[in-house]
């Protein structure tokens, strides 16, 4: 099957024409920057690197990221075809393609979570309430501090509805997977 792919007209064009290969590589680099760039910025946001940007705005950027992924699926397929029998036995390529596969499914999960929670995560009212409670802390004596701490945690859980530990875990995994994709992709030419 992979030999047949190598002799298809697409792979002959990519492999043998003057511009086929560089055009596909260029598209692949642009797609990479869009996909990894946008998902990375969102993951950084979830992990608290910059706290002020609206979560809901990222829903629009995710659409662009999927366009980027489509560009790379297309250009990647063309590049794969030109040397299918080489790629399919190349370990870095297999690492890369599995990272992208899992990374995309995870990104889809992250997007579904974002759709459900963006409004809640963005809501300013809850943060203001939290700040008020924190500010009132200084009015209490040390004997009450224990009670207050319990109350604080409870209020925090109820009112401060930012991304939870599951969201943080997703973001960390997502960053790791896109890094692995780059790592594998770059090593294809070396191993």
């Amino acid at each position, binding site marked *: 099957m992979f030999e047949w792919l190598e002799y298809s007209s697409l792979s002959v064009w990519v492999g043998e024409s003057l511009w086929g*290969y*560089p055009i596909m*590589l*260029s598209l692949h*680099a*642009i797609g*990479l*920057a*869009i996909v*990894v*760039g*946008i998902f*990375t*910025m969102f993951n*950084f946001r979830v992990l608290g*690197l*910059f*706290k*002020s*940007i*609206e979560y*809901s*705005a990222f829903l*629009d*950027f995710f659409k*662009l990221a999927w366009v980027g992924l489509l560009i790379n699926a297309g250009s990647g397929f063309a590049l794969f075809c030109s040397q299918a029998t080489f790629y399919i036995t190349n370990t870095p390529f297999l690492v890369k393609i599995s990272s992208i596969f899992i990374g995309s499914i995870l990104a889809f999960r992250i997007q579904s979570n974002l759709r459900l929670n963006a409004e809640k995560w963005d809501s300013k009212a809850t943060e203001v309430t939290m700040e008020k409670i924190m500010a009132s802390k200084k009015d209490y004596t040390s004997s009450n501090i224990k009670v207050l701490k319990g109350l604080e945690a409870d209020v925090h859980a109820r009112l401060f509805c930012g991304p939870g530990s599951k969201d943080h875990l997703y973001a960390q995994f997502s960053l790791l997977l*896109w*890094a692995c994709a*780059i*790592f594998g*992709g*770059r*090593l294809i030419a*070396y191993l």
Partner: protein
Amino acid sequence: MAQNLIQLLEGSTLNIWVLSTAWLWPLLEILHFVGLSLLLGAMLVIDIRLAGFVQKMHIQRTHDLLPVAGIGFLINTLTGVLFFVGDPARYAINVGFQIKMLLVLIAGLNALWFAIKINPEMHRWDPYADTNIAAKTVAYVSLVAWFGVLLLGRLIPYVSTG
């Protein structure tokens, strides 16, 4: 000028180190790609908002992403310098590389223009509205320049020397 630079760098300690360390080149390439993802990812979000899209995003707050872009640029400057020192004869006379550096310069001047002319008046803007023509111009110049840098970088092995 290019020839003098090549002569100066070839045989230097750093040149020999880059060439003789087997794992270094692929490692630098990986870092260069990570850096480009940070730089272009951050610039994409900032410039798309500056161009007037995604108006539900507070425009001034997109500047929180600038440190990420800065770190990406720093990573790529450092790794890029090592590429150049490692193989000066290849890069210095490569038209793709020369245009790439020109585009980095244009992107830099564009950012400077933004910092001097547009940024000081930004606090007066409605943070959730469309942007003016000057801002849009800066945004599109930035996007074209940075994606041009990416494109030319990728094409260095495929363009002829000048």
